[in-house]
């Protein structure tokens, strides 16, 4: 079994969703129930593979890549099919494998207009392939392929099933992210050509795209070239995160996307950017990272405050949650920018926590939209009276989102603030302590906009418009099934953060040792 997993586990995890999608292509459009079953079944099979991976992962050796497959793919450019996971990728993959089935369950009874379960679910499955592939890839070209694969399904999801301004939002999302990716691929190619040649299986030396070998092979790149290369990757990943000021695609994409699209976008797709930083940019070019880090930290804390301020000005609930994503990812990027094990562990935890929490918030918003047909905060109110359970879940998610200790969000924020006190890599301590104070201020603003939202939406009495609306019913069965795992996980991770830290710590410590003079 272990051998089978070693050689096939990740490949299956990556491509089973695609296989499911292909099967669905053959099934006629009218057989909606069959489509749903196939989709859910496929995602559950992937989740099962995930469970097997989790149980067979060697946690003591979290720093080494496991389940590695290294096969020839494009010999001409020495790009190989290399996949593997370590302590950094594992939580991300687990998150993805959890979110997709929950999304499918959530959509079971309500697909957004124009309903077309076949196409919608196929797109979700292709997304899953792309997401898992990105997290598993250990070759730059392979990574790039999967990184781009997620763009098209999301474009269609927003553009076809979205809100009023969906065309604009979809186009903006696609082109903006692609623009970043274009710069990123140039960086990858620069890395390829400027790094040292490595021995190839089969004799000889060649440039490589292998992410495992590049840290050493790229050590000889000149500083100015490294800075430019890092800049290209910064654009590619930074737009995806999204970092201020490249975030403007996010509110539109989230607001116009259908609920499940928003959830997947917030929960996983944003993490592709930060994951790229941690997996590729930082290990391969540590010294360039040290030079870029203050700038990244600056943009991160600006994002925290700016995102919070924009949230306070919102009148649409989903747009508010979208801006809160900008603020939360600011904390993640701050953690990364400190180049310490505290910071990067916090970043990964924050990625998982944000995925669960903001995913929950978008789910609730989507349910509210479905019942009220509007997300205009001024028109909503008294949810705790009309739909007490949904109000409670919203309250719980709000508390988790503002970083309440005891829930998962805290462990994404507090260690990031802690790490900023003592940054690594020879970074300017005073500057990062200023960032630390600003980030702490950000927690106050986060509480402000979230609680204000909660007060307007959940407290008080229901507005006259909806007070007697029979469509406004409490949480339904499918919603419960979709949400309970996330809610439980938020609490469990809040009280037992070691579940994640235990996994990520070895890999992160390994990576951080590359920076000069690590802090704690």
């Amino acid at each position, binding site marked *: 079994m272990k051998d089978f997993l070693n050689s096939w586990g990740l490949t299956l995890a990556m491509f089973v969703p695609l296989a499911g999608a292909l099967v669905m292509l053959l099934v006629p459009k009218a057989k909606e129930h069959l489509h749903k079953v196939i989709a859910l079944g496929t995602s559950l099979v992937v989740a099962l593979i995930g469970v097997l991976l989790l149980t067979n992962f060697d946690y003591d050796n979290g720093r080494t890549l496991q389940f590695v497959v290294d096969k020839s793919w494009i010999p001409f450019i020495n790009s190989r099919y290399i996949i593997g996971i370590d302590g950094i990728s594992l939580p991300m993959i687990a998150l993805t494998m959890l979110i997709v089935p929950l999304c499918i369950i959530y959509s079971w009874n309500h697909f957004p207009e124009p309903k077309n379960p076949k196409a919608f679910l196929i797109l979700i499955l292709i997304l899953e392939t792309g997401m898992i592939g990105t997290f598993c890839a250990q070759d730059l070209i392979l990574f790039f392929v999967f990184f781009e694969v997620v763009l098209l399904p999301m474009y269609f999801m927003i553009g076809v099933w979205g809100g009023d301004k969906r065309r604009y939002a979809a186009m*903006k999302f696609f*082109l*903006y992210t692609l623009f970043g990716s274009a710069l990123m691929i140039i960086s990858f190619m620069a890395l390829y050509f400027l790094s040292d040649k490595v021995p190839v299986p089969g004799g000889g030396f060649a440039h490589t795209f292998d992410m495992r070998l590049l840290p050493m092979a790229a050590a000889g790149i000149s500083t100015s070239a490294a800075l430019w290369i890092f800049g290209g990757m910064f654009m590619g990943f930074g737009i995806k995160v999204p970092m201020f*000021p490249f*975030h*403007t*695609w996010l*509110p539109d994409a989230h607001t116009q996307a259908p609920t499940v699209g928003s959830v997947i976008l917030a929960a996983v797709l944003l993490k592709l950017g930060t994951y790229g930083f941690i997996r590729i940019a930082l290990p391969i070019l540590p010294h360039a990272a040290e030079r870029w880090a203050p700038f990244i930290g600056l943009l991160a804390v600006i994002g925290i405050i*700016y995102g919070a*301020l*924009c*949230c*306070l*000005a*919102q009148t649409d609930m989903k747009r508010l949650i979208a801006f809160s994503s900008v603020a939360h990812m600011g904390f993640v990027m701050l953690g990364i920018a400190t180049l*310490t*094990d*505290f910071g990067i*562990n916090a970043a990964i935890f924050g990625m998982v926590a944000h995925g669960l929490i903001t995913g929950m918030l978008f789910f609730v918003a989507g349910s509210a939209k479905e019942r009220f047909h509007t997300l205009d905060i001024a028109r909503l109110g*008294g949810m*705790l*009276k009309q739909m007490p359970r949904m109000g409670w879940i919203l309250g719980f998610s709000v*508390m988790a989102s503002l970083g*309440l*200790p*005891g829930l998962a969000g*805290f462990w994404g924020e*507090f*260690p990031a*603030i*802690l790490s900023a*006190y*003592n940054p690594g890599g020879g970074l300017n301590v005073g500057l990062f302590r200023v960032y*630390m*104070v600003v980030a*702490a*201020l950000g*927690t*106050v*603003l986060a*509480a*402000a*906009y979230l*609680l*204000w939202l909660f*007060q307007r939406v*959940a*407290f*008080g*009495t229901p507005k006259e418009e909806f007070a007697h609306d029979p469509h406004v019913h409490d949480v339904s069965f499918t919603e419960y099934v979709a949400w309970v795992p996330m809610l439980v996980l938020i609490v469990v991770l809040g009280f*037992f*953060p*070691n579940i994640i*830290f*235990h996994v990520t*710590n070895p890999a992160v*410590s390994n990576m*951080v040792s590359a920076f000069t003079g690590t802090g*704690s």
Partner: protein
Amino acid sequence: MNLLDKVWIVPAIMATSFLLILFFGKRAGTKATAAIGIAAVSICLVFSVVVAGQWINRVNHPPTGAALAADIKQANGLTPQTPNEVGSEVNAATTDSGETVATGDAQPSTEAQATTESQATTESQATTESQSTAAEGEHETVPPVVRTVTWFEIGPIHFEAGTLLDGLAAMMLVTVCIISLLVHIYSTEYLHGDERFTHYYAFLSLFTASMLFYVLSSNTLQMLVGWELVGVCSFALIGHWWEEKKNTDAALKAFLTNRVGDMGLIIGVVITFFAAGATSFNVLHINEYALSGGANTTLLLVGALCLFGGVTSKSGQFPLHTWLPDAMAGPTPVSALIHAATMVVAGVYLIARLYAVFFQGLGIGSSSLHYVAFIGGFTTIMGGALAFVQTDLKKVLAYSTISQLGYMVMALGVGAWTAGVFHLFTHAFFKACLFLGAGSVSHACHHTFDMREMGGLRKHMKVTHITFLVATLALAGIVPLAGFWSKDEILAGAAQGQGGGAYTLMLVFGLITAFMTAAYMGRAYWMTFWGEYRGHGTPHESPKVITVPLAILASCAVVFGFLNFPTNFFGLEIPKGLTVRFEHYVQPTFAFPAVQAIDFRPVIAIISTLLAGAGLAAAYIYYERNKGPHGLTGRNRAARAGYTFLENKYYLDTLYTDIIAADTKGPLARAAYWFNQNVLDGIVDGAASVSKKVSVFVYRDVDQLVVDGVVNGTGLVSEESGQFLRRMQTGKVQQYAAILFAGVVVLAGVLVFVV
């Protein structure tokens, strides 16, 4: 069975109660819900009392030798260190026993050696201590009982979670449990018929669990968790009747104001962590670092001030106290439990727990004025002044709480540790009694708290009246009730100082406030219970469920003062085993700075009692006898200006809510959003529209014109040349023949002449 290391069970019981009520309460009904809550708290109370008893036993028979060393090791987590003695023996111990305080740099290989060394030395030390400290009141070093588990690991460090039990924690356990139990019982009647009964009890349980978790925390990170959790419960309970906006506004205000202070708390936790070597959040570890010789006092100062930021908001110090009066929007039992007795003292507890950091950082032992003491003193006066202009009985009590919290902080600031903690203890009881009494009064007066609609209630509500009176006298500090002993010790502490001279300014603040406390409480008392009833209907006494807790609390207010009977009360000869019991059992002896014991000062005691009496008398004359300058604010502009200033709460609320908050969520947020949509998005959309224009240009002017032009041009050229050549086709054979012939001639010529 030793329960001291199993105290984690106490918050666990309350957490279980929370979960049970949360998931099954609605189905089980209100009676079962209340029963679950009350049963859980009762078990916790019993447990706490047993634990307290075991702690007392431990102090009376402290561990020695190997057990002592093992306890010390467990307390620190890793390296055994020589304990610090209290009193004036600090210098003596470090010089004559020749030991140095082992820092965290001790090598693991020498750990075993150090253990045996410290075993031997602490043994001898214990014996010499018990001999030489007989005069001090047997203050041997009694390490707290610490039990931890690994919580998570980052980098090379394993962070722990666990419990720390010493006198302070045991005292808090008992206090929280008693008051929580009484509030639980009281609430069955007070919230009878409330639509959210189970929700309320669920959060009461969660609050109690969080508060117990907080006081038992062994490290600052855990304290942070508990701190925020009690904040959430406060939020939920203040906004209990959330249909009305003013309740939810108050809840938001409480949470957000506390969040502002929490900024400081988080940064303070971070700073102390790094200052103490970035290896552990353990409070003993941090305290020992603070007391060690090589501590960075600047860093400690900054850390202490940041932590004090959290205290400022949570414990209602100036200027972040504004949420407390608004929090009265919640049900009265909540106000009693959370905003009088327990949650608001979390900040005071923080200072008490991390006292070494504050003591060393602020230099309490060598100054006569510093920030913490000043803020504490200023808060007492400021809060007291505001209590005079309130017509809502609960608001009077709220400002009184702010004022008393100021006393506690001031006490800790001037170095009178036991005084501050003792005041925390006594205040919990008489303030809870006052609040529950106010609830009882309101219960009878048709749920109003406006004192203008009360009056003459002493005739109708005997028990409530007597308990309220007793608690008022206790608060005012009339001998021999509890408040006298605790407040007097604080004043004596201010007068004595800690080596840097007397904290005179604080003493003055304290004495003025003593007068004010008695005066405004007298005002409240006389307006409520004397005179004629100004409301409608006939008030009647509340049921036993309400009055019995009141009686219990009042009795505590009478009796508990004697727990810390001073050693030299007017020269009376009192056996050693009966004096300063509270200090003996509660004040830490391990990782605790050398705080001088506070002597009883008869002069201060007499002055403060006279002032309190004068205050009560002044209130009597003004409000009951209606003598004095009534209507002064109508006649005198200065008086009216002062009154308006007080009525508007020093315009702080205006500043916070109308200026800062409104501007942030209004213009500032909108500006940021405008920037986002018009500048950032403007650039993006602008890039798009520029791209479109460029593409139109490229298409129309370049592609169509130039590139296609070339393509079309070639066609044109072909066509034109074709047209031109076509003219050669005349269709006339003879012409063709002529051309043919000409060509042949040329060819022939070429052939003949060239070739």
